[in-house]
């Protein structure tokens, strides 16, 4: 509730109004009464927000109004679901209670849509009530809180059955009356103030707590998919008015998740008086000030300050990249004085445009933001600023429905229909375009006329290759155009092809096709063919459609959404029968069930195939086929060699990750590779056998790991550019970056000559005052690769006869001291051992899994994913597990309705 400034300025510590100034003397008495009233209600948010959990809250009644026939929903979530008292004479209201003294019904005017939608989606529920029953005899059960239609139809009911609490919940495995119910023990309910909490999670575990302690538990299997959306929410009676309850309500709350044991205890401890609006209850992962820092200040500091004042350069001994160092003093002046921009050196120099030094000053708007941040207390979110996280538009991680990529389309068709459409699909479908490093980036998976035409043509081709009659028999053996035969077939076939049950309107729509065929004198087979064609062009086939609407918070995904996410992330293909069954049985919401599916899926060859797609995309291996190195300089280059390099990297990845199940970091230094005789000769290795063979590199010190493979070394172009190679390592392995070259600097590359190697040229750049601050961060990363020429061959001397070296230093992002290395092998070992590199691999795999670039909002979750993966051995499989189990996959950030 918004407080009046009058109240804010005059409130004393005990909440009473203080004496007023002369201006306010003129305020009328009635206004003072109103203000007293408001003071009584309005309390600082901090006094309440710690008491009760707001996460997942859907409806909240605190009965604070002392009169009237309306009971307000105070959750602040969605549209308020207010309740109306039908017989106000039979209730007595005080501030904070509603005593039901006689038979009445307190119900919503309309169906409780938001409760219905939220609980059905999450598959979880908590019903909470602080009540005092009038006696220990009423039964029926007498309805305390009910979402129902009548005495034998409900979604849930919290009731009193004598001296016990009785809770009924409708699922696909219980009756429409929610039976069998869960009861508390006998004599557990008495005419005294009692805290009652019922929780049920997606796996079916239902628990009943009284006064903070668990009283009963049982498994209530099934999903809430059969809930009735027309039921209303009611207190103190059944909707049919034949199951009255008498007693006093103090608080009723409904959540779309199961509160934990700890939370239930906390709510009990908070007591009946812990109350507020939902907005204050809503759990925030970050405070508004922390969000402001992440949103505005971290990017600002990244853009303008960290080039000189990060851990590496820390000019003036100031490192603004870390919380621990940002609030330092510089030349006896405090750089940032929280709350006091006027006393902060940072503000002083920025305001005067003295800083950034020799760079564009901050804009007027940026200065305002900086000043506001300091004056508001200079709150810092996290420990360190990740400059790379602030490169892109924050909107890149909003929800974009994911169209199937070409490989996913091919695999989906194959899995669901048995038809191999690879050749035709690759010919007809427009290629997917790379965006932000991968070609499965959802925001860029657009469609144009060519796609529509292609999908239409391919649908016809696929159906032409099928025996549709045989295919349909999997779902129904009946033939005929009658409604029940067709609807049944459409529903079952549609559920398989479209990867989740069809809604009623979808069944009707597809059914319409068979009606049209029948009306045109067509056969059953013709109807089947056209039905399949339609489904193959449906948005639910071509896209991975998920619910994205909610209350603006992160909602758990449904069982089918989770199954689809798992299968496309791990396999690049739709869920198979086993996975769908596990989803329908709720097993994916149970740890054991989920783990069993993950193990099975990761053992499937499709997981390895999908991971090969990841590598292909991450390292842009398709680039190799288009390379045209100077034929005079590299006469040995040809398309076959390019193909060999691609095959080498894919086979190497498969060996390290799948055959040996080694940590992903070993990709940097594993002493093996795969080569054809042609590639082996190119590398100077003794040829072994025909075709692509495995080579042990233990006795080949210069090779071993991705960076020593042609597919990566060619990134530097003909001249084996240290800048390009170094930037690759910096960006794609160390997940860092540097700014553009400063003004008025000639960036034209200097060619080598006798007596001047690229290393020497790079060293000059590093030593240069204007260039070195950035170049120190990436060029030495390429020193260890100096002996590899532009197409990956090893040489001790360059074309000018200069002797080459492979020692150097590596400056890990966030550190100040470079770490020396003596050889390329040592460089590879340092990279493999670096947590930064391991984190980068986590980010890359996760980006490919999610089909979107990752941003600051993902950092905390990614940290957890990374820690979990490392705990599991740092392997690809452990990373997959961690990603699937994380909120990145288990939840969707909804948009508010």
């Amino acid at each position, binding site marked *: 509730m918004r407080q009046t400034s009058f109240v804010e300025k005059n409130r004393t510590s005990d909440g009473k109004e203080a004496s007023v100034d002369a201006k306010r003397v003129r305020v009328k008495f009635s206004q003072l009464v109103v203000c007293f009233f408001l003071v009584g209600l309005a309390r600082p948010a901090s006094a309440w927000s710690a008491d009760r959990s707001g996460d997942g809250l859907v409806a909240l009644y605190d009965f604070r109004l002392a009169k009237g026939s309306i009971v307000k929903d105070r959750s602040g979530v969605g549209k308020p679901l207010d309740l109306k008292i039908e017989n106000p004479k039979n209730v007595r209201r005080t501030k904070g209670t509603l005593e039901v003294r006689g038979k009445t019904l307190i119900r919503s005017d309309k169906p409780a849509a938001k409760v219905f939608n939220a609980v059905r989606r999450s598959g979880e529920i908590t019903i909470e009530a602080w009540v005092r029953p009038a006696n220990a005899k009423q039964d029926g059960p007498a309805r305390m809180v009910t979402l129902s239609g009548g005495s034998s139809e409900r979604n849930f009911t919290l009731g009193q059955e004598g001296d016990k609490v009785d809770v009924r919940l409708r699922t696909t495995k219980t009756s429409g009356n929610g039976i069998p119910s869960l009861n508390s023990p006998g004599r557990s309910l008495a005419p005294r103030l009692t805290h009652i909490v019922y929780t049920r999670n997606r796996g079916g575990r239902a628990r009943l707590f009284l006064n903070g302690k668990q009283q009963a538990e049982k498994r209530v299997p099934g999903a809430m998919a059969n809930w009735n959306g027309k039921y209303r929410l009611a207190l103190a009676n059944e909707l049919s008015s034949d199951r009255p309850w008498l007693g006093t309500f103090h608080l009723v709350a409904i959540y779309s998740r199961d509160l934990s044991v700890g939370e239930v205890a906390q709510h009990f401890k908070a007591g009946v008086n812990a109350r507020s609006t939902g907005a204050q209850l809503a759990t925030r992962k970050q405070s508004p000030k922390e969000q402001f820092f992440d949103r505005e200040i971290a990017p600002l500091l990244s853009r303008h300050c960290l080039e000189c004042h990060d851990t590496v350069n820390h000019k003036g001994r100031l490192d603004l990249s870390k919380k621990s160092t940002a609030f330092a003093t510089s030349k006896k002046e405090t750089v940032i004085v929280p709350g006091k921009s006027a006393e902060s050196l940072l503000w002083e120099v920025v305001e005067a445009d003295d800083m950034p030094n020799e760079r564009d000053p901050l804009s007027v708007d940026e200065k305002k933001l900086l000043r506001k941040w300091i004056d508001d207390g200079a709150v810092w979110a996290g420990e360190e600023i990740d400059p790379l996280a602030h490169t892109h538009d924050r909107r890149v991680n909003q929800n974009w429905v994911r169209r199937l990529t070409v490989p996913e389309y091919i695999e989906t068709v194959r899995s669901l229909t048995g038809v191999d459409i690879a050749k035709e699909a690759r010919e007809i479908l427009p290629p997917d375009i790379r965006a932000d490093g991968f070609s499965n980036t959802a925001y860029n998976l657009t469609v144009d006329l060519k796609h529509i035409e292609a999908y239409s043509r391919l649908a016809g081709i696929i159906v032409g290759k099928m025996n549709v009659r045989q295919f349909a028999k999997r779902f129904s053996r009946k033939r005929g155009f009658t409604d029940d035969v067709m609807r049944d077939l459409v529903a079952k076939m549609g559920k398989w092809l479209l990867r989740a049950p069809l809604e009623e309107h979808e069944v009707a729509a597809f059914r319409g096709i068979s009606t049209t065929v029948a009306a045109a004198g067509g056969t059953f087979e013709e109807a089947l063919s056209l039905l399949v064609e339609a489904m193959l062009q449906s948005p639910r086939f071509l896209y991975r459609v998920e619910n994205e609407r909610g209350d603006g918070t992160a909602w758990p995904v449904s069982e089918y959404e989770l199954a689809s996410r798992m299968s496309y992330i791990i396999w690049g293909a739709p869920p198979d029968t086993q996975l769908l069954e596990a989803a329908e049985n709720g097993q994916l919401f149970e740890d054991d069930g989920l783990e069993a599916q993950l193990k099975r899926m990761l053992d499937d060859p499709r997981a390895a195939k999908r991971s090969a797609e990841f590598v292909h995309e991450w390292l842009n291996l398709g680039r190799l086929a288009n*390379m045209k190195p100077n034929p005079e300089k590299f006469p040995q280059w040809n398309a076959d060699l390019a193909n060999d390099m691609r095959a080498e990297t894919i086979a190497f990845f498969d060996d390290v990750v799948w055959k040996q199940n080694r940590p992903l970091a070993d990709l940097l230094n594993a002493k093996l590779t795969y080569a054809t005789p042609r590639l082996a000769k190119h590398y100077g290795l003794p040829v072994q056998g025909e075709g692509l063979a495995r080579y042990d590199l233990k006795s080949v010190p210069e090779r071993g790991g991705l960076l020593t493979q042609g597919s990566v070394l060619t990134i530097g172009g003909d001249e084996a550019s240290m800048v390009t190679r170094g930037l690759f390592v910096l960006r794609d392995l160390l997940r860092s970056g540097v700014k553009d070259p400063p003004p008025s600097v000639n960036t034209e590359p200097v060619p080598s000559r006798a007596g001047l190697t690229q290393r020497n040229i790079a060293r000059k750049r590093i030593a240069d005052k204007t260039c070195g601050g950035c170049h120190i961060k990436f060029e030495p990363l390429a020193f260890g690769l100096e002996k590899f020429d532009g197409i990956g061959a090893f040489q001790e001397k360059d074309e000018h006869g200069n002797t080459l070296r492979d020692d150097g230093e590596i400056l890990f992002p966030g550190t100040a001291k470079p770490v020396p290395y003596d050889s390329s092998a040592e460089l590879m070992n340092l990279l493999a051992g670096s947590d930064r590199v391991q984190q980068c691999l986590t980010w890359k795999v996760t980006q490919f899994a999610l089909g979107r670039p990752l941003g600051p909002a993902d950092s905390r979750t990614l940290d957890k994913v990374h820690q979990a993966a490392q705990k599991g051995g740092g392997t690809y499989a452990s990373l997959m597990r961690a990603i699937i189990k994380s909120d990145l996959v288990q939840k969707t950030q909804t948009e508010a309705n």
Partner: protein
Amino acid sequence: MNRRTALKGLGGITIGLPLLEEMTLAAKAKAVPVRAFNVFFGLGVPAPLQTEGFEGVLEPLKPLRDKLLVMRKVDQVRCDVSGINAHYDGATGSFTAMPAGGEAKAGGPSIDQVIRKTFYPDGMPVGMVPTLIGGTYFRRSRVGRYVHSYHANGTVAGTMQEKPRDLFDRVFGMVSVDVGGDARKQRLKRSVLDTVMGQYKFYTGANSPLGAASKARFTEHLERIREFEQRAFEMKKKLPGAPTLPPRSKVAHGGPADPGGMGIDITLEELTTEWRLMADLYALAVQMDRVRFGSLTFLAAGERIRLKGDYEYGGRKVFQFDDATQHNATADKGCSHEWWHKFNEKKKNTALRAHAHMKMREVAYFLKQLDKEKEANGRSILENSMITISTESGDGRHNDSKRELSGVFHAITGANGRFKSGIVDVGAEGLDVYNTMLGAVGAKGRLGPVKRESRHISSILA
């Protein structure tokens, strides 16, 4: 239908048109339609060269000087995103005036799309291509280098048609549902399409479970299905003996066009033949009123080509292109791009001048195609449309942040008498210039941050 004629490209290639009775001339229309196009050329014109008026590199625009407004000193510095390639920043900033939102994402809508949404909020008339994106380019490491029409959410407003034949197909092509002339089968296929459309309508409707961005994506998909339906079922078949499609391209496309940024070898004749065919077809599409919005690209941002060939203009030999030899370098170091890196105000910069002059010639070629016929109000399509010509940077160098995205070359057409002609030193931010342009044509949307004090640039208004 006087346009149903053979079309000649620079290389003497002849193409014909399918006989489609829906094609009508805009000249026959009673009202002149609203049109907006973005024409992009790569690498920019260094700011000092823009001060030479129409006597320097801008000479090829001179014949159109009464129909163009050259705007100098347009500042796009806001579009610079540190750590990302300056070519790309400038390219995605051209026509949007906002920093990029991702490698394939602009920071907001482009000018043409803002106007399209204002005047056609429910979609374009049946038979039209909603947004036509075409171009002749090679460098393609980021989509923003070569696509220049963007939705409000920053995603591309259409698929790039980089081959003339693909552009032709996109505009005029028939689509087949493989049922021949069988009316019964056609009806059944149509019922399939209707069912599919119904589903997309659901997902774009009030009960859709999708968020805003996803819904917008499905809206596009639905529009494409409508186009497909129209072409598959409502357009008449080609008559026997109708002319054939244009021949296939001879220049590199797709992956081979950009071998890892190392550049390709191409002759001037190959380049301009391809480009002029593309330009002719795009102009034809506009003249036939099959498209009213979109963008056309002549060479990508940061383009890498090693050009060779004699360049002539106005009966004189201007220059002999031979980039690799003249640079005495290979691969990327031998590309025309390097002339921009070597630009020095105190030197003659002969090669750079020739390249920039050639680009202006090719841009002018396209513009002139739209200036050939008069519409109902006595003005040409060129004069009636709002065509914005721009580029990626002030001068294509990376070593002067004050130049890089400041003073970006711009030129606009009159938009039916709304803008001046000639040369104006605007001295304003791109956002203010574009928003003034949008306001002048009656567009509802504006570019840039909502909370920003904007400036009206009256110096460009007629």
